[in-house]
């Protein structure tokens, strides 16, 4: 994952045209793109095509907890609200929250990660220590007390709080990748030609880890959607707005389950699950893009009945980091300090796909 970025772009550049590119995408990524495309479409046009006002309580007694029918494709709630309209409105709010948190938190990750790796020494170790502390403190309970104390639990505060706690994972991975890139020749060349640090960061380092940043963005969106739905489910949100989480909150609090009203909670939950699947597929697609070995065996050629894969690209030699006294002291508290001393196959930053 850390070394393959340079080879990645090659096949796509050669083909150029969109259909060719599309065919070369790993199957998982295709499925992810299609799934997410559907949800984004639903988020854009959903509220416009929604047949009813999601909050309108139809007083007709026959529409009280009515099963799906032609007029109400996904049935109605206890108070006669149309569930399809709620779902269509809810997808927009949930996706909007996820994407915004993704953008803000990824930006924070890039800033912290690149800064740490670029400054090096004590600052690096200090930032890494802070990152590790926030990584190890479980986010959801902290989110619960933060939102619990806020009197305004609407969309914006939730986005801010989720972003505030969503950056450490990405910062760690991006820092590791920046450290790997920083030692490459082209960075040294850029420095020799007198490029400023800012220019090196924005034009040499960040563009070289776009696939990593993209994967991290997708992961963060996944985290934000999962966390916001869970928070809404326990009632820590504006329960009068329509998101996928609040639909589930009302279904639970109005005992939809005990009343056998499956149409109340199944579609919303399914939407969350499908959105999550789309994001995971997209992410593993990006991952396989960056690491050819993870691709399906169908891409590998067969020689005498055995699969043969391209060998590992030339590994980048990590130069031992120069940390200084305080820096090494801070470093010795990290798990990574176990693997100091240039051992092969260092598992330092291989967190995997979660």
């Amino acid at each position, binding site marked *: 994952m850390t070394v393959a970025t340079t080879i990645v772009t090659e096949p796509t550049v050669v083909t150029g045209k969109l259909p060719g590119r599309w065919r070369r995408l790993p199957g998982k990524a295709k*499925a992810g793109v299609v799934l997410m495309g559907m949800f984004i479409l639903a988020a854009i046009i959903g509220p416009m095509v929604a047949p009813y006002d999601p909050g309108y309580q139809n007083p007709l007694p026959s529409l009280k907890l009515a099963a799906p029918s032609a007029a109400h494709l996904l049935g109605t709630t206890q108070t006669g609200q149309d569930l399809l309209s709620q779902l269509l409105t809810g997808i927009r709010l949930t996706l909007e929250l996820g994407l915004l948190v993704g953008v803000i938190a990824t930006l924070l990750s890039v800033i912290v990660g690149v800064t740490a790796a670029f400054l090096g020494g004590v600052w690096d170790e200090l930032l890494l*220590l802070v990152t*590790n*502390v*926030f*990584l*190890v*403190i*479980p*986010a*959801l*309970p*902290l989110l*619960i*007390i*933060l939102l619990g*104390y*806020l*009197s*305004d639990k609407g969309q914006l505060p939730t986005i801010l709080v989720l972003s505030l706690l969503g950056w450490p994972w990405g910062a760690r991975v991006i820092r590791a990748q920046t450290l790997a890139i920083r030692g490459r020749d082209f960075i040294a060349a850029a420095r020799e030609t007198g490029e400023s640090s800012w220019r090196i960061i924005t034009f040499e380092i960040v563009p070289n880890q776009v696939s990593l940043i993209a994967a991290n963005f997708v992961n963060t969106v*996944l985290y934000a959607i*999962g966390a916001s739905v*869970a928070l809404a*489910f*326990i*009632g*820590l949100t504006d329960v009068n707005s329509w998101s996928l989480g609040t639909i589930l909150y009302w279904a639970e609090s109005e005992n939809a*389950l005990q009343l*056998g009203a*499956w149409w109340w*909670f199944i579609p919303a*939950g399914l939407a*969350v*699950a*499908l959105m*999550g*699947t789309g*994001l995971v*597929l997209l992410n*593993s697609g990006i*991952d396989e893009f960056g*690491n050819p*070995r*993870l691709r*399906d*065996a169908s891409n*590998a050629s067969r020689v005498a009945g055995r*699969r043969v*894969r391209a060998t*590992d690209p030339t590994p980048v030699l990590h130069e031992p980091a120069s940390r200084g006294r305080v820096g090494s002291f801070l470093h010795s*508290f990290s*798990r990574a300090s*176990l693997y100091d001393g240039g051992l092969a*196959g260092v*598992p330092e930053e*291989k*967190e*995997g*796909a*979660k």
Partner: protein
Amino acid sequence: MAFILRRLAFYVVAAWVALTVNFFIPRAVPGNAVEAIMAKFPNLTPGAYKAISAMLGVGKAGSLGHQYVTYLDDVAHFNFGTDVSQYPASVSSLLGQTVPWTLILVGTSTVIAFLLGTGLGIMAGWRNGGWLDRSLPGLMFLQAIPYFFLALILVEVFAVKWHAFPAGQGYDGGLVPGWHWDFISSAIYHSILPAFTIVITSVAGWMLQMRNVMVTTIGEDYVVAAQAKGLPNRRVVFTYAARNALLPQLQGFGLALGFVVSGAIVMEIVFGYPGIGLLLLSAVTSSDFPMMQAIFLLITFAVLIANLVVDVIIVFADPRARAKEATR
């Protein structure tokens, strides 16, 4: 030993950060928690303002520094104040009743999911492209389902429709908790569905991660060399490839634990399981801030301790780490 001690120091720092954040949140958020509670219960007399602020520790006398020291002292003695919703009971006594339930349920099912997922990941990674590997997208779907939603469906199908399992509670209502077989068997029976939920939703994550590391490890020269020597496949898979692929997996275990525990806690709400999750829900709905804060600290400490255990396991499982420890 030196490494473990240093890690211990790191976790102490993390715990201190959690404690400090927990101390400052009620004091830093805009708006006033006391007024929020007053607004929620309009029949409270103005005199209750003082009582509530005393209970939350917001209006405490003394400087901020003094309050901080008192707070740390209280936490060290497991004194989290008095509960708001079940008034005379102390928070720590309520926690004491619920923690064992969550600890046993989440602990056991997480370990099962980890072992199962790692095993399946080894198989999927070794037979890369086989049927197990191709079923991964389906498993990803299971992983993407929110814990509580899967719980809702399982209750609907197994408890409401088929009556195969109880729909809620931790044990049969007619039983007195204690160390006798009736109670224990009832508790196990009631925990099967919640445990199943945790295993189903988290197994794919472990599997995917193990599979990815496994695929990379199998390409290493020493694995190819082992195969070329003519070693039996079983030996190559487990002793050469899986043993090395397990280390990143273990590191992931410590970090992913927070997610699993958080998800499991929300899931408890659906099952009405008498653990921390249910307590947290009642704390949220009744604006019971002392309880919410105590639960946050408790979960954080549990995750930190689990991480320390993982560190110890890593040192023992990784010969390089062991050798380094010996020379330090």
